[in-house]
């Protein structure tokens, strides 16, 4: 596709891909790994709590973990876009990459649902019956997204 070729040949993409400096591909990839750890790690803590781990943990008090997650999300949106642009013609037509994006989208949506229906609703209602389902769905989506992201290096 012409747009992917254009994206890949842009000067930013070329720098990310071919820059002979630690600040190009290595640092962007490392930041992407940190973003993943923040997003998925903080998410896992919330999911585990909703699934019943550490009942003495007041759910609402874990709210700052959402800040950690959004920090990781935005970091990875930026670094992920750069990594995609550097390799656009291959990734843009790669079913594994597309599937990874689907799972990321599911994961982010579920985080939003947990935030709105479990955390923001906490004051009025005691517990949402489907919070465990959301938490399990979140864990599955992020496990799939991380696994596929990692496998991108091997296919």
């Amino acid at each position, binding site marked *: 596709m012409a747009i992917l070729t254009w994206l890949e040949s842009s000067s930013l993409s070329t720098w990310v891909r071919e820059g002979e400096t630690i600040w190009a591909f*290595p640092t962007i990839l490392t930041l992407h*790994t940190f973003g993943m750890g923040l997003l998925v*790690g903080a998410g896992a803590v919330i999911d585990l709590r909703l699934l019943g781990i550490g009942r003495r943990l007041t759910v609402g008090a874990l709210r700052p973990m959402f800040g950690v997650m959004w920090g990781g999300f935005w970091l990875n949106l930026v670094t992920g876009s750069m990594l995609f642009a550097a390799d656009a013609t291959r990734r843009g037509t790669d079913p594994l990459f597309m599937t990874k994006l689907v799972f990321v989208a599911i994961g982010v949506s579920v985080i939003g649902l947990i935030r709105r229906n479990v955390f923001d609703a906490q004051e009025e209602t005691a517990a949402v019956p489907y919070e465990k389902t959301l938490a399990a769905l979140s864990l599955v989506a*992020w496990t799939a997204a991380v696994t596929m992201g990692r496998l991108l290096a091997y296919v």
Partner: protein
Amino acid sequence: MGSLTIPHVHLLLNHVPTVGSVAALGLILLALARRDDHLLRASLEVLFVVALATLPVYLTGAAAGTAIEALDGVSVDAIRTHETAALLAFVWMQITGFIAWVALWQGRRLPHLPRASVGAVLLLSVITMGLMARAAAIGGEIRHPEILVGPAAAAAGAPTGWLTSATIAEFVSQYPWAWPAAEALHFLGLCLVLGVLLAVNLRVLGAMKPLSFAALHRLLPWGMLGFGLNLVTGMLFFVAAASQYTENIAFLWKVVFLVVTGAHFLYLTVFSGTWSLEVDADAAPLDKLVAAMGIGSWVGVIYWGRMLPFIGNAF
């Protein structure tokens, strides 16, 4: 002062697991005889630290072997036999250290350490001590002909059995999915450790104050699960392709940070300054410093791990 080489580090540290496991076992027996719960806790803490210190001992061994295998009078079979014995002892040492940690974690809320876990640690540490002594004895024979009475252990030839670096390397090359699968698990473990360390340490630093530290203490096994998962998958990489890591500066730094993270987990599990943090209480400045360093240690592990192929020479 000459520069410190990796084989030298192996020689400096390699008595710690042997002497350490004997000392820890002695302390456990003494504590049980005296019915002294404080001493028992301390002895399990020593055991955990010894298990942690065993990590750099094993990881520097491959470089030490490479450095001397071409020398006159050094048998490659002797090195391989020592390596195999060391791997077995290492695995048991890590299991023992992990169960010691579980006992300490369970015991944090109890007046006494749970008997079942202490019994398991006692049994495991006897096995570990025996295997460690054996690995050390075989290792000594590589370069110390003066200790030999009769033929060296290596006279039996190259080691056999399923748990050798050769069989693990063969497994990884025979099943092409093994390495990527272990990498995926390694990254999931990374997330779990980071998530747990952030939740617990951000509380100490002053976020999420409506939570007591004791409540967050319940999350620690999930962090240790990630840590253990990454130890297993990481050892698969190292044992299968040691040459990628032995002369890799990024890997050396990664191991340094890894040992700090392990020590930080012990600190979070047993130290009383953080344990007594009630709802809305503010932590002492020193505990905040340790919390920040704990997060920083894992950030360092991730950074140096990710830089293995870029700053170091891993593929």
